């Protein structure tokens, strides 16, 4: 067979594939379309493995959480965390397990020009202590028992910042279902990093769809910035738990635009369902 012809045929198939891919992507819905150049931190690095176990150091008023709410937690307590705790002025500690993970290359990308937030690059300090939550309020109620309306909520400290202060030098902290329930009861912003099609099948009530794999993620980030939210308020991001990293990727992205108080629900939506937390289906939060 003519070698030249063989090469031409192969090249034609590849070129036709590129054209078809570009046309299909151009015609695809926002949920199916992608940016041509991906932006995924750690695409070639292996997933972080748990390296240290964090044991909660203090509890409040001698209370303890129900056993289903305090499983032993293996945490990636990263060097970077203490800078944030020190900067916040109050060491974060509590009886709910909380872990922090600072991705290996955690430096912020340049601030987009369109946003009215401080610019600059902050690096993660070394040799610091793990980030810990502030004391948990007594008796974190089971999620299922959480009242729907804020008027009937239990008299717990209302300000999430008191327990979850900003941590500017750490992209995100990993928190468990107890902390997530506590924050959910206080109306903190929840973002669902899973695919929109999965979000529509069921999500944490009030959570917004925010898939990192879909073409409109940057538009959503910009829209979030345009809301002029207080960037020190906690934001909870979740995906499917287990080895799902979508929430970590989204957290990194938001930290990059100076959202300074992001938490990843490490066990994700399956855990929320197990706990009987309020959930919704459909495309609306």
């Amino acid at each position, binding site marked *: *067979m003519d070698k030249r012809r*063989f*090469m031409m*045929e*192969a090249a*034609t*198939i*590849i070129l*036709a*594939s*590129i054209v*078809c*891919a*570009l046309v*299909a*992507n151009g015609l*695809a819905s926002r*949920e*199916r*379309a*992608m*940016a*041509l*150049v*991906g*932006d*995924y*931190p750690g*695409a*070639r*690095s*292996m*997933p972080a493995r748990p390296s240290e176990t964090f044991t909660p150091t203090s509890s409040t008023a001698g209370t303890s959480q129900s056993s289903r709410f305090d499983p032993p937690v293996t945490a990636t307590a990263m060097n970077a965390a203490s800078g944030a705790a020190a900067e916040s002025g109050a060491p974060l500690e509590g009886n709910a397990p909380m872990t922090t993970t600072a991705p290996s290359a955690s430096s912020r990308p340049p601030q987009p020009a369109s946003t009215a937030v401080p610019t600059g690059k902050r690096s993660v300090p070394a040799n610091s202590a793990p980030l810990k939550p502030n004391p948990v309020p007594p008796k974190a109620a089971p999620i299922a028992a959480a009242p729907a309306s804020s008027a009937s909520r239990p008299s717990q400290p209302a300000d999430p910042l008191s327990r979850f202060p900003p941590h500017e030098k750490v992209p995100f902290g990993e928190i468990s279902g107890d902390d997530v329930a506590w924050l959910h009861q206080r109306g903190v912003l929840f973002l669902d990093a899973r*695919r929109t099609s999965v979000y529509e099948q069921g999500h944490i009530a009030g959570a917004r769809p925010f*898939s990192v*794999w*879909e073409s409109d993620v940057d538009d959503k980030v910009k829209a979030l910035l345009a809301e002029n939210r207080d960037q020190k308020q906690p934001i909870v991001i979740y995906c*499917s738990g287990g*080895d799902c990293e*979508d929430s970590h990727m989204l957290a990194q992205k938001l930290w990059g635009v100076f959202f300074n108080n992001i938490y990843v629900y490490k066990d994700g939506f399956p855990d929320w369902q197990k706990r009987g937390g309020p959930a919704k289906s459909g495309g609306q939060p």
Partner: protein
Amino acid sequence: MSAGDALTHPWLTVRVQIVLGLLFVAAALPKVVDPPSFAHMIYNYRIVPASLVNIMALVMPWVELLAGMALILGLWRRSANALMAILLVIFIVAITINLARGNVIDCGCFDVHAAGRSNAQRLADMKLDILRDIGMLLLSLQLWYGVRRQEMAPG
């Protein structure tokens, strides 16, 4: 008839050609329909630079689809088959690398959604995926020599 003649017989070659084509079309369709999920799968391999993940997820399924259709239709068989063989080698190497470094992944070969299986099951699946791809590579090899025999045949 020698073993070589039997293995490259046109009767066998045309069937291998159609089976390979169908397998590649079947593998391509879920990825063509949902490129972001396939991009997620590629990301999980931890081999491809971030900037190439999306473009690979967009183009690779179309190469599979067009090459598969070419084989089914009997067009450009050698070049389509060569592209398939290259893809199969890439898949085998990628899965083997992750198996060697203990990174448990879903193959993303025929389904782009995580199967929700345990790590042990997924590790076993990865080994089966490698065996399946080696099997397909052998089919590709048969097709290569079968087509060459047809082209070299007098008349």
